[in-house]
């Protein structure tokens, strides 16, 4: 039980002859480091590709061909590109929501539930006002989708501010509540009577669908997402409120000293964060599936967390990383024809997050030589 590494080291220092110099390093907390360097996301992606290459090789494929196929599948044709962008829209909106919350150190991992709430809110407009013209329906769906998502975000924020309940747990659990509520509606009251028992609402009409680009599936949601990113950038950079958020994020103690009411900001930010995921949900039902149905999200809300981390909360980074992850999903489909499971893309996503977190953690340390 009693090892004496320290005395041994002391012995070698005293120059007890014959001791061979051992080459050793130790990891030490580096107090001067408070954030990871800018290149960790790039390194994480590279390492994730490398790790997954091993598994692809075990499956008897050439990783390079597989990756090439994924890239051409996702970005090699105009069809691929528009499909990638279609997937990038919800990722961008949800990822932005996650990023805004994390700005003030709030972990919103409930984007998935807020997304579902937004989809339900938008669909409710159609169910209860089926015959409105497009100029009314679309804005109403947008507003209700946003409000529903925002409300879902508030459900996390209120216990957090008034009772100190950990938002990680509540936001995660509320995901299941939202998804089950969605199941209730599509299996129950909102089910299409002519749908041969398919768990979904009737198909939306032309007036209830977002306009698309030409013959592609790329819809107006992309514009929503880009406007949201632009607003985020401008707000954080130039407004008083954005300054307050930056202050809270950088040092909440100091923000208190500056007279900022942090609880108030948590409520507002979670309302916005949820609202953005809600818009994503609205855009998905109105622009892609054209109906509310069972299993509407393939986990956009969760992938969005990785998107936000990879972007390091940077607006431009969010665009890049959501397109990358959209491409990963589309590329995953295209390698299925090679006999690989499409879950290869989930694996890549997981590996990227793993290396990102490891990178953020390890960058707080420094290497010191000598025992």
């Amino acid at each position, binding site marked *: 039980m*009693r090892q004496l590494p320290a005395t041994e*080291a*002391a012995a070698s220092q*005293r120059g007890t002859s014959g001791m061979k110099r051992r080459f050793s390093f130790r990891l030490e907390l580096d107090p001067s480091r408070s954030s990871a360097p800018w290149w960790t996301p790039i390194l994480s992606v590279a390492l994730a590709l490398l790790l997954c290459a091993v598994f692809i090789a075990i499956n008897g494929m050439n990783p390079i061909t597989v990756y090439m196929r994924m890239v051409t599948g996702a970005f090699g044709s105009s069809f691929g590109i528009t499909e990638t962008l279609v997937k990038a829209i919800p990722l961008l909106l949800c990822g932005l929501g996650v990023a805004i919350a994390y700005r003030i150190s709030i972990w919103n991992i409930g984007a998935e539930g807020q997304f579902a709430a937004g989809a339900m809110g938008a669909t409710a407009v159609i169910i209860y006002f089926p015959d409105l013209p497009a100029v009314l329906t679309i804005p109403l769906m947008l507003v209700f989708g946003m409000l529903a998502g925002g409300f879902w975000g508030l459900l996390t924020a209120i216990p957090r501010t008034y009772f100190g309940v950990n938002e990680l747990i509540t936001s995660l659990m509320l995901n299941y509540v939202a998804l089950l509520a969605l199941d209730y509606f599509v299996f129950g009251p909102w089910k299409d009577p002519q749908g041969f028992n398919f768990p979904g609402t009737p198909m939306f009409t032309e007036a209830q669908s977002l306009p698309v680009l030409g013959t592609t599936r790329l819809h107006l949601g992309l514009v929503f997402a880009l406007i949201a990113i632009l607003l985020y950038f401008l707000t954080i950079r*130039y407004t008083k409120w954005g*300054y307050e958020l930056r202050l809270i994020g950088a040092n909440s103690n100091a*923000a*208190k*000293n500056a*007279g900022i009411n942090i609880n108030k900001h948590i409520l507002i930010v979670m309302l916005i964060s949820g609202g953005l995921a809600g818009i994503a949900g609205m855009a998905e039902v109105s622009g892609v599936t054209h109906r509310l149905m069972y299993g509407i999200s393939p986990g956009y809300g969760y992938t969005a967390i990785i998107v936000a981390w990879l972007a390091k909360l940077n607006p431009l980074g969010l665009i890049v990383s959501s397109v990358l992850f959209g491409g990963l999903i589309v590329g995953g489909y295209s390698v299925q024809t090679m006999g690989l499971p499409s879950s290869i893309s989930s694996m890549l996503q997981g590996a990227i997050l793993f290396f990102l977190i490891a990178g953020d953690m390890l960058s707080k340390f420094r290497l010191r030589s000598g025992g």
Partner: protein
Amino acid sequence: MLKGATELRSSFIVSVDMQGIVKRFGPVIANDHVNFQVYAGEIHALLGENGAGKSTTMSMLSGVYRADAGDISIDGKRVRIHSPKDAMALGVGMVFQNFRLVQSLTAAENVVLGEKSSFWRGARWMKEKQREIEAISERFGLAFPVDRPIWQLSVGEQQRVEIVKTLYRGARIIILDEPTSVLTPGEAEQLFQTLERMKREGKSVIITTHKLKEVMATSDRISVMRKGKMITTINKSETNERELARLMVGREIVLTKQQKRPIPGKLLLNVQQLDVEADHGRKALSALQLRVHEGEIVGVAGVAGNGQKELAEVLTGLRAWKGGSIHFNGKEIKTASVRSAIEAGISHIPENRMKSGLAGSLGIVDNLLFKSYRTEDHSRLGFLRASKNRMWSQELVEQFDVKTPDLETPVQQLSGGNQQKLLFAREITRKPRLMVAVHPTQGLDIGATEGVHRLLNELRNSGSGVLLISEDLDEVLQLSDRVLVIYNGQIIGEISAEHADRERIGMLMAGLSTAGEAAV
């Protein structure tokens, strides 16, 4: 076991020998060639004010920090201690001021935690261990319920768990950092008996403290540290509280200030019968009285933890109070609000600039805007006036001589002195009526310290009131027009600058006041 390396000195076995220990934190020397020896079977008190460097010394012995220079020997063998694990293997165990216990685990589980074989051994193994732990606690008089989770234990009991943890792991050298700061007098008495028992079993016990009474009650030998230096080591039998107080605070002659003092103006801050509770309902301030006039610096001297933090928090709107009244500038302040304090013209240099004064990852402009961004000069219709703010910041940086590559540099990359200048720039440019400065020169080198002193003097000369809260007695004496001594949440003495007497202030700070001192 010890190949003749044991040193015998007047029949004492030296168990810890630290020689020429140097530790720097940035520009600050926390330990300046410290020599420190502890014998086996003694209780050794390491005495000093906060910031004297005693915790740093002990942290190096227990592997939390690594010394920049110097040698440590344990039982006569030269060792290198890189981590608490190394220290433990050498028989050094430390009980920290903030306990390191897992709240949801039982006391016994906490004791065995980290033991290699403790991963999962089942209930019978645990029972066995509990008996073993109970045997240790009985032997040293450290009673606590072994099978209860930590959160159900009192603070005193938790401390006992910590002590047993070190003993269970075979510590022969036990360090207790400010052990009585969390204890009731009764618990403290019990702790001292435990220390006696450990001593009788031949263990070396080191306690760090700034309480003179305790030192005289428990220890065999006393080492006094001041400002990073080891002043002396003496036997308890050869000293007394008075001498210790003097050694602890130093004996230098106070320099009387040359410049002519302006006559203080009208009453600015009037605090009457202030009662304040600390975070856990403990009484922090009781019936505190305090007055600050325009154009004077009032220094509050005292050992840390006597209510200074709470006093500053109340005055700057961060903490609510239970009783008493606060009048500022003729008007009564009714509720605690940081924003109204800012608007009333109360500036604040907080105790820890990086923790609550500045946002380290943000640049100069953002940090300067802290308290002014709401005003018309700096924002309009919800938008910050970016170019105007930049110009304003540039002016302040030049005026206060903040050395920075540019206005975007994250302030955590500036030196401590420049960070403090930035903080002062922000607080002074608002032309405060009252400045509450808490430990304003902590961690600064001599040049930066002088700069801060100059700024405070200028502020006073321009007619503002300054409340200077500091543990550095030299600083308080040098700057203040009046010196108040805070002890146990009360002002127990007031001394005007002309009659400042270090020794008496030192005694007051240690709570050795003799009645007859009119609190003001």
